[in-house]
């Protein structure tokens, strides 16, 4: 019989209502024998007592229900965001508070690069916090006048470049193209948007960008960033899953020291429907303890802050025309039905409330055509849903994963420009989900916002925007409910609640090891609770000490 270890902790918050708190947890074969007192657990027989967590608080390992392994890809480029952000090695990249600081950071990076004219690519830039000042060509020309410099914004839909990039592309005042932003005098400012931005980003970085962002190293970096935040299970919620990625994931997940369970969601709609259920079924056969294929993702609309979300009447608060469909309603119906029939669980990206409505229609039609219990199709983001849509979710057996981090990062923009006060105050309506009984999780959508479930929980509890405005008192939830959303709640939306999400007999020994007790700290400090590391399947992963 394999060795039994009993960990002692300051407190264990189990998320098991029948046995909510404990001081000890016994682990054998990577799974939990039980949680309780030492005397209760000693009955399991011979054991080693491990005291290293004696002053720590254990929670079920956090489950990030909506993130992208792409987070690991972007970290090989310099981060230029407004907020501090932890990289894969635990080092904090300091937030840059104005354009001058951004330029200074880029100059530093540029100096260290080989003098071969290669492109300097950076990410995470977000000018919305700079009081209306946008970045222009002259800013980035201060970084270099011969090396191409490309700065991708935090939304991944807009970029800035310097003069060498524009010159090489032949973009000037005579270029009459929608995505090329121009100033009052008709000169390009250096900003490119949407399709032109995307095209130029790939061009500047070389066509290898896509593979660079999803190479084997990227998934390791992603796993490490997640682990630092106390995450033991994370989704890679939209992946075409080419063979190279599948191989990389299989290889990584087979390694003992790979620190998370990874759930890639297959990007539906890129492959003819007739072929996919088989292909996905083939992948599912290769699942192991740390890698689970089987999720499916459909992306219906764009984003609210990108003004591309599909909204119901009356649309955008500032009068911007309605957003764009990524795939049309008919195709959403067909795709969802195909995977539904084949027995898969579908995660549907819906930012705007019209997109949510279409997704609910699709689920309703699929159920009428092929009744199926416990499908748990999940609306992802679902930021604008009103109470009636939550009631529909409940009636249809759907789950929801709400984008709580949005409240902080874009809440002010939503209040002032995109949604207006009433809808901004009810966005990411955790309290309504709870009251309606819709199983729910909350998420970060890394790399769109940093991965950090305690921060995400803090958002759901406090609903504070970056400027300090409280966005919707009525939709706040309590700390315990928020903690459930980042553990058992998320596990439910991934159909893994039988395996992870709580600390109880039979489940996997996945823990978040915290410096403090999130249930006793001031709720406004929830995001500041330190993460010592994690335990995954009984293996201890200490986070590197932060700089």
């Amino acid at each position: 019989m394999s060795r039994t270890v009993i960990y002692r902790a300051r407190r264990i918050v189990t998320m098991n209502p029948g046995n909510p708190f404990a001081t000890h947890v016994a682990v054998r074969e990577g799974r939990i024998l039980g949680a309780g007192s030492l005397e209760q657990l000693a009955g399991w027989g011979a054991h080693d007592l491990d005291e290293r967590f004696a002053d720590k608080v254990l929670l079920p390992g956090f489950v990030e229900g909506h993130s992208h392994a792409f987070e690991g890809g972007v970290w090989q480029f310099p981060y230029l965001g407004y907020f501090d952000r932890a990289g894969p090695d635990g080092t904090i990249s300091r937030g840059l508070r104005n354009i001058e600081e951004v330029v200074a950071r880029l100059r530093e990076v540029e100096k260290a690069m080989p003098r071969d004219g290669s492109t300097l690519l950076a990410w995470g830039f977000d000018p919305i916090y700079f009081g209306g000042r946008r970045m222009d060509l002259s800013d980035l020309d201060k970084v270099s006048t011969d090396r191409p410099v490309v700065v991708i914004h935090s939304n991944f839909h807009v970029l800035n470049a310097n003069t060498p990039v524009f010159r090489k592309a032949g973009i000037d005042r005579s270029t009459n193209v929608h995505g090329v932003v121009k100033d009052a005098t008709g000169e390009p400012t250096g900003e490119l948007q949407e399709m032109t931005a995307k095209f130029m980003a790939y061009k500047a970085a070389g066509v290898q960008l896509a593979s660079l962002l999803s190479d084997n190293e990227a998934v390791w970096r992603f796993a490490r960033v997640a682990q630092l935040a106390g995450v033991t299970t994370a989704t890679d919620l939209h992946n075409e899953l080419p063979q190279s990625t599948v191989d990389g994931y299989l290889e990584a997940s087979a390694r003992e020291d790979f620190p998370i369970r990874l759930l890639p969601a297959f990007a539906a709609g890129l492959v003819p429907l007739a072929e996919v259920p088989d292909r996905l079924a083939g992948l599912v056969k290769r699942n192991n303890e740390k890698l689970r294929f089987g999720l499916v993702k459909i992306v219906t609309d764009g984003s609210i802050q990108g003004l591309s979300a599909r909204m119901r009447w009356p649309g955008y608060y500032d009068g911007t025309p309605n957003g764009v469909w990524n795939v049309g309603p008919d195709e959403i119906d067909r795709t969802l039905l195909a995977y539904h029939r084949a027995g898969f669980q579908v995660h549907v990206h819906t930012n705007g409330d019209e997109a949510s409505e279409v997704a609910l229609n699709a689920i309703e039609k699929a159920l009428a055509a092929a009744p199926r219990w416990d499908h748990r199709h999940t609306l992802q983001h679902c930021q604008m849903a009103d109470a009636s849509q939550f009631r529909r979710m409940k009636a249809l057996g759907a789950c929801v994963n709400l984008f709580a981090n949005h409240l902080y990062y874009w809440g002010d923009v939503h209040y002032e420009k995109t949604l207006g006060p009433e809808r901004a105050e009810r966005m990411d309506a955790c309290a309504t989900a709870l009251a309606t009984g819709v199983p729910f999780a909350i998420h970060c959508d890394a790399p769109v916002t940093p991965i950090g479930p305690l921060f995400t929980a803090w958002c759901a509890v406090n609903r504070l925007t970056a400027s300090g405005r409280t966005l919707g008192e009525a939709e706040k939830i309590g700390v315990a409910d928020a903690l459930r959303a980042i553990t058992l709640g998320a596990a439910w939306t991934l159909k893994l609640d039988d395996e992870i999400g709580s600390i109880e007999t039979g489940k996997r020994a996945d823990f978040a090891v915290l410096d403090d007790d999130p249930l006793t700290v001031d709720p406004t400090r929830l995001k500041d609770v330190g993460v010592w590391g994690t335990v995954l399947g009984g293996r201890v992963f200490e986070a590197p000490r932060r700089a």
Partner: protein
Amino acid sequence: MPEPGATPIPFTVIGGFLGAGKTTLLNRLLVAPHGRRFAVLVNDFGSVDIDGRLIVAHGGDTIALANGCLCCSIGDSLATTLLDLLERPDRFDHVVVEASGVADPGRIADIGGIEPRLSRDGVIVVVDAADVRARAADRYVGDTVLRQIAAADLLVLNKRDLVEDAEATTLKTWLEGIAGAVAVVEARHADVPLAALFGLPPGADLHPAAPACEPAFRTWTFATPHPLSREGLVAVLDALPSPVLRAKGFVRFADSPGRRALLQRVGRRSRLDDEGAWGLGRLVSEIVVIGTPDMPSDADLAARFETAARPVVDAAVLSATLDRTR
């Protein structure tokens, strides 16, 4: 990378709602023996149905055809697929992208404006005569359909056989109300004058099966040794009615008589690019105009273009002409 100064490749985007007939049109283009190498980027191969006898290689996300054409599936990103294509050693004469059923083809065509190896040739939007009005009134996709129509340089009113003449007339008026004075080509089974839509050499045999129903279109050529007035030509082009589908040619302007300008017009959108010195070519402006049978008569067209070509005698023109003869 092409050698510097290589002529940009014409870049066409085909838009239109699901079921309008984009794929049928693309299939026709891919298999027509037009003697040009098209690269066609489609959303998925499931919908293209290329004659198996024409396929010489089928590898992953590309299908190579015996006529030199290539069909690629867009995969996760149009940008990467397109860049990949431009890096390939084989040169194509024309790149065509099939926009998804809900995409705004105008936004995709923007790539032609920022990629020097491509030149935006036009946005062709295919609509289903029997169903476009209903789609445009749909609660969820109505605005998407209207945006597509508004983005068109040229509209294909497909499945024309499914509606009466009177209805077709009403439809065309309605379409013009959204898209402006855009060329509208009527078609059955997406059987369109490919040469006119894609600027192929007139007279090319475009029908592999050679049915007797070659869609009719007319061609007219304007040639003059006199340098043209730039404003005059722009005015003539702006005033061309919608049955004129394309115009292409080399122009010698009075304001820069030593230089050759390339005129390209698709639907209602014209562009003039400076192509450098005339070199040793004949100093003749030559413009080919292609349109439906409804386009103005040859005499009418001649009268229009003549207004831009009143003989100009000016010192700059004279010295540029003399320079070449030394």
